[in-house]
């Protein structure tokens, strides 16, 4: 009887230790230092990064808390866009999103439309992001170079003026062991690219700050702040700790492309006839 009692006491005392060991076994290992490499996907499912109604933290849903701080010019630029998504969406036959002409999405829209499986590679000089959508890549320099300066006609790199780019000029520094802070400027202006699929604009004065924080070995949080004084009266957060999870390193990511030929066929067979009156149906 006494022996059974002793065993029970020992088991009771050991239970919390065993329990915490079991929990610890299920916990991912800690984040490695200065390393965000890997194949990542939205932690809340593949559709979480689609952001069809606009940027994740501020969708265009007419809610007061999601109204953007437009300058008069920024509001005018927004109204000139006819988006297929969001609160001011038009029918498929009447929109002018450059996405549907298979134009480059540009940065930062790459983060705000179809952000799906993303492969991040890095070495001592740079971090490279391979986006699934449109099979697009970005180079982010971590070799200590300075961020270029915005000047008329593009950016100044040293004494040289370079052209604006769809994906801008990016440099990054480690804010701590597990957080990479990326600064990007020198993107295309409002006549070439949109900020998001709801038709929000950006200009060539845009500065973007991204913070990629590796929470632990298997999880990453991605935040993006928009600072564009030509379009918005103050900086605002477009993506707030968007969760990504690490995939199997052997994962072979499927391509998702924009093909002008397939787009034309889709619009002819389905997009255009579904938008208008039946009398506008094309011959098949």
């Amino acid at each position: 009887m006494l022996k059974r009692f002793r065993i029970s006491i020992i088991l009771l005392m050991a239970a919390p230790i065993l329990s915490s060991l079991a929990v610890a076994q299920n916990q991912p290992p800690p984040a490695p230092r200065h390393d965000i490499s890997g194949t990542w996907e939205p932690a809340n499912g593949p559709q979480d990064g689609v952001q069809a109604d606009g940027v994740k933290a501020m969708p265009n849903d007419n809610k007061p808390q999601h109204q953007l701080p437009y300058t008069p010019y920024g509001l005018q630029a927004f109204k000139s866009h006819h988006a297929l998504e969001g609160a001011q969406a038009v029918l498929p036959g009447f929109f002018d999103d450059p996405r549907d002409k298979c134009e480059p999405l540009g940065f930062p829209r790459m983060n705000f439309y179809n952000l799906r499986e993303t492969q991040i590679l890095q070495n001592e000089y740079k971090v490279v992001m391979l986006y699934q959508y449109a099979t697009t890549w970005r180079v982010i320099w971590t070799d200590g170079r300075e961020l270029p300066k915005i000047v008329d006609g593009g950016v100044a790199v040293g004494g040289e003026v370079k052209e604006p780019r769809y994906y801008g000029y990016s440099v990054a520094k480690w804010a701590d062991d597990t957080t990479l802070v990326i600064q990007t400027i020198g993107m295309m202006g409002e006549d070439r690219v949109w900020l998001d699929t709801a038709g929000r604009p950006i200009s060539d004065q845009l500065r973007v700050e991204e913070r990629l924080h590796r929470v632990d070995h298997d999880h990453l949080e991605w935040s993006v702040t928009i600072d564009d004084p030509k379009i918005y009266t103050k900086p605002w957060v477009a993506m707030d700790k968007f969760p990504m999870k690490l995939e199997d390193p052997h994962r072979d990511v499927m391509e998702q492309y924009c093909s002008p030929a397939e787009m034309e066929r889709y619009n002819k067979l389905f997009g255009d006839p579904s938008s208008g009156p039946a009398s506008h149906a094309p011959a098949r």
Partner: protein
Amino acid sequence: MRRKIIPALILAFGIVNFSGPLLAHHGTAAFDTDKKVTLKGTVTEWFWSNPHCLLQFDVKGDNGQVVHWIGETQNPVTMTNGGWSKTSFKVGEEITVALFPVKNGLPLGRIITVVLPDGKMLDALKGTSGVRDYK
């Protein structure tokens, strides 16, 4: 019996609420999402493409007249996540398609499910969140 009814009611309530957001977003502007149509037809083409895959099929009416329908699904990446593939359909196969038709009355629609000749059902929402689908 009661044990079976209550879960069924909970499931039905869940399905109704799950499908609710479909009404809210752009893509449904052209579709009558209150009107689910079920059609039996013969596959004429399965086009695995971006931005949406297209399933073309012929439906023979009671009067013998054949109507050519086109249904769209999501893009190949999303459909792959839901278990669909480039070889999901063969030309000439008899299928049963449930879809939301377009509002203007043309034989076009957004596919919800397709039942194959062997009875297997493909769910067009399976690879999506059910909220942000068809973008």
